[in-house]
């Protein structure tokens, strides 16, 4: 009888059934779409992070940047600002000018180092599966023509001696500044960190036998843009490195985390950062205990910054960051509001249905139906209405997710702080620092007017470098909204809960009807 009565009621009161089901369906569809898109955005963030931090990295350890302590005229050059100082006899003389060519490898502005002994401490921490340390550096090269400083100094001496020469006033300069990122990695080290998300394109990767050797592996797209190939050489920090291989990103990114990869020990020596690293990448034993491991690592290395993927996800910027915020804020709240509205509609309609059916329930009680049977009947009707709404909602939700996946909007993501992001901001700052450094170099060479122009040129050159670095670190990800069985189970579960809630409240009202009053009220 339960089934027959239920079926007849739902079919006989179609309008109510349809309205409750539509309300529930909308809510469930929205929950599915928002959850699915949120999962998609999370995946996209993970993809962006992986391109920067590497596959399998759960935690990164870095050293926070301390406040600048430099003073006086050196402040403009700053902590990491490039400063090229050329002595009067530097470079090769060519007429009234000198050709100079200098290359420097250093830790980027805004990046601090920590002792590489920290790696051992990290590896010794319980819950760590693997860890690797890298030294992220920037190679900056300066090449071009400067006025012959020795002549300028000569002019000065002549002036002291009563003669006057105008050669110092010629002052014209022309030079270019290039920069690229260099990452010192442990050759043949653990597959954690940025190198884990690369695949060999040509040649070979660095192996443990490369320790101490001047060999480099290049990012394939960087190598192509600079017309460099395996077997060729690249000047890094003033030394020629043999290019032994190229690597490409494993994901959909356009480039790997760094332009050039060299053995860690060589990088430390060339950058005068002996026993120093910039980042330690850690993979955890259990994905569920990442937060616990973070706490342990923080205890082991109290001065370091320990970040989990979740911490890093919040640093993803660009349209991906906006999408993430949109989904987490608007999407979640919209789901909650629509779900609450759907529940409310179901409850109100059920209560109104019970009120309308007062005589019906009164009659049933009069002929001996128990309260439990009547509550069960009302609750059963509500649950089935909820389930119908849930099923329709799942279909609509899946259709919505399908549309999202067909449209597959492209999101752009970058990392706004730390890692490559730090190197980016750092590159931009160095453009300024470089210019200022050039300015401060002017009195040294005694060629004020000429160098003013040179400083400006230097600044321009650096700005370009910063821009190109920026474009290489931004990752474009096509949003793909995954559907899991759990999302569907939770959605249908919510529909059933909504139905149960409405049924419980409606049934409670029905159970409170006293048969005599119920019959009297309608007669």
């Amino acid at each position: 009888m339960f089934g027959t009565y239920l079926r007849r009621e739902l079919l006989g009161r179609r309008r109510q059934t349809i309205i409750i089901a539509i309300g529930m369906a909308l809510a469930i569809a929205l929950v599915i779409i928002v959850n699915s898109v949120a999962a998609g955005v999370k995946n996209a963030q993970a993809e962006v992070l992986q391109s920067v931090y590497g596959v399998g990295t759960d935690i990164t350890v870095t050293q926070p940047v301390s406040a600048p302590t430099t003073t006086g005229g050196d402040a403009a050059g700053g902590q990491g600002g490039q400063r090229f100082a050329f002595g009067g006899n530097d470079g090769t003389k060519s007429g009234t000018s000198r050709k100079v060519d200098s290359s420097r490898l250093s830790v980027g502005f805004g990046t601090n180092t920590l002792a590489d002994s920290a790696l051992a401490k990290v590896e010794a921490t319980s819950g760590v599966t693997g860890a690797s340390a890298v030294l992220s550096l920037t190679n900056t090269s300066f090449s071009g023509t400067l006025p012959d400083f020795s002549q300028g100094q000569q002019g000065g001496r002549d002036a002291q001696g009563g003669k006057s020469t105008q050669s110092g006033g010629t002052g014209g300069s022309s030079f270019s500044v290039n920069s690229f990122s260099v990452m010192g990695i442990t050759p043949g080290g653990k597959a954690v960190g940025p190198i884990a998300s690369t695949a060999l394109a040509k040649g070979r990767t660095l192996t443990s036998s490369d320790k101490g050797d001047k060999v480099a592996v290049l990012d394939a797209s960087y190598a192509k843009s600079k017309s460099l190939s395996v077997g060729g050489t690249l000047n890094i920090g003033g030394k020629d490195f043999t290019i032994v291989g190229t690597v490409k990103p494993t994901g959909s990114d356009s480039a790997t985390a760094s332009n050039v990869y060299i053995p860690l020990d060589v990088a430390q020596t060339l950058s005068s950062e002996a026993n120093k690293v910039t980042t330690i990448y850690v993979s955890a034993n259990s994905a569920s205990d990442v937060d616990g491991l973070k706490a342990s690592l923080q205890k082991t290395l109290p001065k370091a910054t320990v970040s989990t993927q979740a911490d890093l996800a919040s640093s993803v910027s660009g349209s991906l960051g906006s999408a993430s915020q949109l989904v987490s804020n608007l999407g979640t709240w919209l789901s909650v509001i629509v779900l609450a509205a759907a529940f409310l509609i179901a409850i109100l309609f059920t209560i109104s249905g019970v009120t309308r059916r007062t005589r019906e329930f009164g009659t049933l009680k009069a002929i001996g139906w128990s309260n439990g049977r009547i509550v069960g009947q009302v609750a059963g009707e509500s649950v089935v209405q909820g389930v119908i709404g849930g099923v329709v909602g799942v279909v609509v939700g899946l259709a919505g997710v399908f549309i999202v996946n067909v449209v597959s909007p492209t999101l752009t993501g970058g990392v706004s702080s730390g890692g490559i992001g730090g190197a980016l901001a750092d590159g931009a700052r160095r453009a300024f620092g470089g210019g200022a450094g050039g300015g401060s170099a002017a009195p040294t060479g005694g060629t004020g007017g000429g160098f003013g122009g040179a400083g400006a040129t230097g600044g321009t050159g650096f700005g370009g470098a910063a821009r190109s670095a920026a474009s290489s670190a931004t990752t474009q990800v096509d949003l793909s909204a995954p559907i899991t069985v759990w999302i569907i189970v939770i959605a249908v579960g919510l529909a059933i809960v909504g139905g149960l809630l409405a049924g419980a409240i409606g049934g409670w009202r029905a159970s409170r009807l006293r048969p005599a009053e119920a019959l009297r009220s309608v007669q």
Partner: protein
Amino acid sequence: MYTLKNLTKQYPGKGRKVTALNDVTLDIPNGQMVAIQGPTGGGKSTLLQMLGALDRPTSGTIELDKSSLDKLGDKKLGGLRGKEIGFVFQGFNLIPTLTAQENVETALVPLGVPAAERKERAVKALESVGLGDRGDHRPAELSGGQQQRVAIARAIVKEPEVLLADEPTGNLDEETRDEIMDVLEGLWRERGLTLVIVTHDSAVARRAQRRLHIKQGKVREVS
């Protein structure tokens, strides 16, 4: 057999209590056909609700075959109604979404009768009120008289000891009224039911063995 002693029922009214039944003492032997008449608001329906175990008295006692209806809990009263007492209402009170046969079957649900037997008994009950061919019709597809027949079939399908009818012909024309009374009287004779009918209609009341008149909560026999 019903035994009512000093039965009083009061309802809370505006500022003062309304006495619907006032110290009623009454016996109704098994198998008797009783008509209860009286003016509107005189207490007819309240008395019927007391007899039907739908409500409890404010004071006094009421027994049906040794069951104290004034003392039993809701659950036991429900069980008693489900088994012993059939109701017929003025407004038919059929469930609009169920067919005639399904409406009749609802009376067998509390008794835990299996589906097949339920169906069989419902068909027989409908046949006994002359509606054997209307089992799959919904109430809205039936006339008032037919609806009341379905309601009577629902009341008798469980083979109760008592059949209580509250203005069973109040919504029907004279011809249909007589048909329904024929049905009720026929069942009473055939099954030996205790039949209590509340009615305004003297033509209906005249068909009963015993007539009671109730006014301002007081019951008196009509000779």
